[in-house]
């Protein structure tokens, strides 16, 4: 990023808004927003890698984020020993059989010569595999889900430190991205968009319905934390003394702010590492090749670049970053709530961040992440103020006024859409354009 006055001013505006938030809503709300901003910036970096550097349209960010969140449960929740004894092994065997069936079908497709016998063998294999899978899977699942379903009713996790879930979330997202990329890349660009839209919906459906895995709509709460708990801090003599030297006498305020600052520290480290890597990638021969492919696929292919392979590579990388961000998010909230994943919030808002910030520019992605998050957070309030302003000539209790003010929170969707359309029209390269 060139250090010109415009860019510095843009980041300064964000800082001012954060300080304002802190003054209006209190330090806790501002710090939570800051942490969310860091996560949004990481998500925007990942999407910027795919869109800005390679021109790939990923409309399934929500799915990768949710996979990352699932990984925190799988890694860090304590295992439910009874449930594992009841059906853990059977579920694993059933899943392996399912995977083996699909692999077998793929191999069959490749090895046998096309014709009637291949089709018959393929259908036979798939049908037998499917029924075998269901035969083992269904009883195992009901056995697991009947184990104390009010408290657990799922397999639980491995009981490992939650920080391990971050790379694991990235890996799981990368795996899903590999499957999607293998099928949809190399076809025309819209297909990738629709395929990713689909996989995201399916991942959410799995999280909502496979109670043995994620407790479904019963949610997982109390995911272990990488940072201290507030109650422990409030009981700790040394912490309170340290807080007093900083002039904070309220133990609750001191502990909650400290916990949020711990998350801020962790997230800043991750963002800094990713940012450094992204900048290196952008300016490396690899980054130049990617941009060459993006700008002219035919020419790049003529120069001997394997376009589809490179696209697959960068698609997996970007999705892995989204998975990592999802794991961080779930860690910060300590919960997995499958119903909270809405595409407008988790997919399209991230897109707006990347495009407004400046696609192809990593600093732009970070700026967009913070900026749009703030707009989203303040959007309801802004909508309300706007409506109050518009309706001030009307007397209280008039139907129209009540309707407008009650529905003002929905203004923020419109606001985000209008901002996106304006930027696309008048400044299509974003606030901090690609260099």
């Amino acid at each position, binding site marked *: 990023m060139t250090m010109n006055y415009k860019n510095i001013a843009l980041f300064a505006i964000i800082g001012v808004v954060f300080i304002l938030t802190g003054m209006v809503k209190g330090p806790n709300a501002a710090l939570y927003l800051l942490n969310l901003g860091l996560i949004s910036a990481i998500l925007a970096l990942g999407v910027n890698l795919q869109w800005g550097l390679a*021109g790939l349209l990923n409309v399934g960010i929500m799915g990768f984020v949710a996979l990352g969140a699932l990984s925190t449960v799988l890694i860090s929740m304590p295992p439910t020993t009874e449930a594992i004894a009841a059906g853990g092994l059977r579920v694993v065997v059933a899943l392996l059989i399912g995977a083996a069936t699909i692999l077998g079908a793929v191999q069959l497709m490749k090895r046998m010569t096309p014709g009637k016998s291949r089709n018959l063998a393929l259908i036979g294999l798939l049908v037998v595999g499917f029924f075998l899978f269901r035969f083992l899977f269904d009883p195992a699942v009901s056995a697991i889900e009947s184990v104390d379903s009010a408290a657990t009713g799922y397999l639980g996790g491995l009981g490992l430190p939650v920080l391990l879930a971050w790379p694991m979330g990235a890996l799981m997202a990368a795996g899903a991205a590999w499957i999607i990329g293998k099928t949809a890349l190399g076809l025309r660009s819209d297909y990738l968009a629709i395929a990713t839209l689909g996989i995201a*919906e399916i991942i959410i459906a799995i999280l909502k319905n496979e109670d043995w895995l994620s407790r479904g709509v019963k949610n997982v709460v109390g995911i272990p934390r990488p940072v201290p708990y507030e109650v422990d801090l409030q009981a700790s003599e040394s912490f309170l003394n340290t807080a007093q030297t900083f002039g904070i006498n309220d133990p609750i305020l001191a502990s909650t702010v400290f916990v949020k600052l711990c998350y801020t520290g962790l997230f800043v480290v991750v963002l800094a590492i990713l940012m450094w890597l992204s900048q290196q990638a952008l300016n490396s021969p690899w980054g130049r090749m990617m941009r060459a492919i993006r700008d002219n696929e035919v020419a790049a292919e003529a120069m001997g670049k394997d376009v589809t392979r490179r696209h697959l590579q960068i698609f997996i990388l970007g999705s892995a970053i989204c998975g990592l961000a999802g794991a961080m998010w779930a860690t910060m909230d300590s919960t997995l709530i499958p119903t909270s994943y809405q595409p*407008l919030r988790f997919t399209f808002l991230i897109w707006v961040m990347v495009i407004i910030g400046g696609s192809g520019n990593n600093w732009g992605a970070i700026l967009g992440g913070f900026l749009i998050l703030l707009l989203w957070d303040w959007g309801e309030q802004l909508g309300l103020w706007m409506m109050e302003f518009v309706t001030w000539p009307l007397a209280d209790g008039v139907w129209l006024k009540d309707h407008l003010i009650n529905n003002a929170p*929905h203004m923020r969707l419109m606001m985000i*859409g209008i901002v996106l*359309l304006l930027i696309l029209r008048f400044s299509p390269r974003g606030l901090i354009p690609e260099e």
Partner: protein
Amino acid sequence: MDLINALVALANFVLVPAIAYGSQLALGALGVTLIYGILRFSNFAHGDTMAFGAMATILVTWLLQSWGVSLGPLPTALLALPFGILATIALLLVTDRTIYRFYRKQKAAPVIFLIVSLGVMFVMNGIVRFIIGPNDQRFSDGARFIIKARDFKNATGLSEGLAFKTSQGITIVTAIVVVAALFWFLNKTRTGKSMRAYSDNEDLALLSGINPERVVMITWIIVAALATTAGVLYGLDKGFKPFTYFQLLLPIFASAIVGGLGNPLGAIAGGFVIAFSEVTITYAFKKVLGYLAPEGLEPSSLVQLLSTDYKFAVSFTILIIVLLFRPTGLFKGKAL
């Protein structure tokens, strides 16, 4: 072994709902495919266009209901539909004039159009939620059933009933009328032919004096009519909720792609392929097989291949299979 009862159960739970749902998807997919054929981009705002059209129709329906106007056994929404279509036409033409035309002039890449349509989607979604709210709305009135399950049982003496909802009947009849009108328009009228020419080869069409802006305008008008009709029919059948229309995007796109993007005939076929697979795969066949199986061999489980929560997975899997083996769709669509 009881073939007739099995057939009736199958018709009641699978065939009739799938035909109605397939008609709704086909109408939605026709809109997507027309935009793809003429304007050459995937319109992600289509689901929300449907929601807007349905909302406009609902508002007029409520107005008519408050005046005491009704169509007797038919839902009042049919009377309100033309007004809904007019409102949607106005919205889409304004959107095209203020937003899409700029990018058309620039000859922007399809992917840019797609992102612009995301922005339009946000705005439309906001408008709908702002005006009518995010909750379920009921607007169907008139008779609920054409054939009631109990009447059918009494008339035929079978133990299985066949229910045929008014909304399903209206959906099927309307879909047939709309599709027939559309194909007549595309194949027989001068304007329709100019649209197909423009879709096939833009440069040649321009050379032969076809006015592109006129073609685009007529496309939006037709798309508005299709989207509103699809939205209202879906709302009558399954209830109106803004978010479900956004979720319809996936099966609608799957239908259009499975049939071949840009091919209207394909869109219809795709709609029915997707609807029938969704309903068949998520239906529990216990009852049907119970009638067919010999004495004592009736299935004890539900015989449901996938739970209904995974209906998206069905349209998605079909989409992937078609993409892998026949990327241009069952009927030859456009390759870009």
